């Protein structure tokens, strides 16, 4: 087991290296020049040159790449160019708000989707099944931008059910007050695709031999679904949820902007607008590493759920 984990971690290195080089090329080589923003509106060429020197972007690309690699190895990305805030502080403070929305969202989304998917899988082929699927398809066809604008206006402002936007200091206030509408919007856009996907996972399992065997043994249909099918379908479900998690961190940027949640997604958009490379690079590398780790974790969970799986 330990050997397997080590080997997998070792295999991540080339991928991470690829990510590093790609990110470096995309942002240092062709990306904007932050010096012009940092120089203010009364800049002159001498001052631009000085800022480039202070930031180290006048060095050759090889030197800059080497510095970047060193930063990754030491996990010290320095400070943001526009605010002077250390990257570690940026990440540690923005992660909390993002997770406050994303963790409940993911848990709720998974539970609700599994429940509904099992339900429709149970009545597969019926009118209910078809109606639910059509409703999901319709729900998925509307842009998240429209959901945010309409929900914020109608549910929060017109009906007053939720705060319009905002973020507080205490965790419970954030979770039970401010994060509610963002989570609701998140659920609205994410349940439909998950439900559709999970339904196919369950249907895949239902057509397997062991289900026929179970039926032949006279087990009740709910029992077959809830115990046998769910257990086996849990593998693709877990992979899907796990591998989606790191990407969600950034994908929630629209929600974070509209609801003024100081999370990672909003931060990265801001960093791109400011050409704040240290922040962009650090977040990319960390999210890439997290994506790989979560994939590994998903594989390990496979094993835990289904001992038959051979880790190779």
């Amino acid at each position, binding site marked *: 087991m330990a050997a397997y984990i080590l080997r997998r971690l070792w295999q991540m290195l080339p*991928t991470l290296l690829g990510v590093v080089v790609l990110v470096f090329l*995309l942002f240092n080589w062709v990306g904007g020049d932050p010096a012009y923003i940092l120089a203010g509106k009364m800049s002159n060429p001498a001052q631009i040159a000085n800022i480039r020197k202070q930031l180290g972007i006048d060095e050759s690309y090889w030197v800059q790449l080497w510095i970047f690699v060193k930063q990754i190895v030491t996990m010290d990305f320095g400070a943001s160019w526009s605010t002077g805030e250390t990257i570690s502080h940026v990440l540690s403070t923005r992660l909390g708000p993002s997770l406050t929305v994303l963790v409940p969202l993911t848990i709720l989304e998974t539970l609700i989707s599994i429940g509904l998917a099992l339900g429709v899988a149970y009545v597969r082929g019926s009118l209910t099944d078809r109606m639910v699927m*059509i409703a999901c398809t319709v729900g998925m066809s509307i842009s998240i931008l429209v959901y945010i604008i309409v929900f914020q206006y109608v549910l929060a402002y017109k009906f007053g059910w939720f705060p319009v936007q905002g973020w507080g200091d205490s965790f419970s206030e954030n979770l039970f007050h401010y994060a509610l509408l963002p989570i609701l919007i998140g659920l609205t856009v994410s349940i439909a695709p998950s439900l559709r996907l999970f339904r*196919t996972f369950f249907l895949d399992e239902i057509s397997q031999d062991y289900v026929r065997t179970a039926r032949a043994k006279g087990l009740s249909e709910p029992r077959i679904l809830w115990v046998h099918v769910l257990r086996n379908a849990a593998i693709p479900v877990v992979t899907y949820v796990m591998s989606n998690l790191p990407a969600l961190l950034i994908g929630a940027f*629209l929600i974070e902007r509209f609801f003024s949640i100081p999370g990672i997604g909003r931060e990265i958009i801001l960093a791109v607008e400011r050409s704040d490379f240290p922040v962009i690079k650090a977040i*990319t590398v960390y*999210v890439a590493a997290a994506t790989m780790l979560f994939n590994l974790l998903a594989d390990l969970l496979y094993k835990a759920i289904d001992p038959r799986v051979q880790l190779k």
Partner: protein
Amino acid sequence: MNTQTSANAQPAHAHSSPGLWIMAWRRLRSDRLAMAALAVVALFLVTLLLSALGLVAKHWDAEVGVNYAPPTFMGAQSAEERGVEGMHAAEAPVPDNPRDPLGPVLKQLRAERDAAAAAGTGGGDAPLDYYGIVDPLAKEIAELRSTLGKDKAAAPVRRATLPFGADKWGHDIILKTIKGSETSITVGLAAALLATVLGTLFGALAGYYGKWTDDFFNWFYSVFTSIPYLLLILAVAAVLQQKGVLTIVLILGLTGWTGVFRLVRAEYIKHKNREYVMAADAIGASDMRKMFVHIFPNISHISFVQMSILTVAFIKSEVILSFLGFGVPVGVASWGSMLNEAQNELILGKWWQLTAASVAMAVLVTAFSLFTDALRDALDPKLK
């Protein structure tokens, strides 16, 4: 596209499911919902074609209505209610500068100018050279002014209401939505085609050759999927710089191939050792021929379904790209640019543009998705 692929698929080999596409079509025919969805999609495609040929919505950018003209059933609104008063109204008042800094020199100059204007010998908006500034074009401009005369062209009449309302510029919303659907669907289809071609090509190479080719593409795949999608999009957008509809197609296509790759690669690994490939090998078929003439027709349905899924996803992504400022160029309408323009309109009570773009998009995307589902079920009946 449908029939074409099936035509290609038939003569290639007699082995596995020769009538895959024909059988799928028969299954689809019996699915009423799928046919309805297909009809809706076809309707959109016909509109797209008409619009692209310039037969419909050619003059969508004509300013036919007043700004924010409401839909006809709501009745006309006053300029004040529309909130855009003032365009042709008198200049807004400018606060007085309590210290009049001008000395007697300028006072006198003004008096001279006004006197000249009163006497009809100059002034008005004729170029002044009281300041001693030599105008190199003074002669030409003076001549042109005198030939053009004073009369001004009459402003075109604009309608107070339109059947589906107007946007802030006075464009007819229904025409704009039609033109927008042309752009959005074209972008979605083209980007999906690009992503599918890339994914299929990479997947075929990786799956067929295996070994280091497979390792390389797998590495490439994991690098692409590890970088957050949003950052990838922003980075590719920064690299491409040049703005245009093609840029959006490239951004989406170059970042969206990974899903197709994974599926196609798995299929090639499965197929490459099958008998019919061996047989082709025995008659000396080249690798390329085996890959694309022999194997591809057997897995083409996977690429096709993926392309259909991607089309829907990309039509939605265009909205987000517009929000991020990487949308269609100026003078081109798309659903994404409409939704972004309408972002603040709901709160102002001008809901028609938001509604028109959302509904058009929802109807197409729903129909397309339902059709895709039915198609997938028809092509892969074991799922049923």
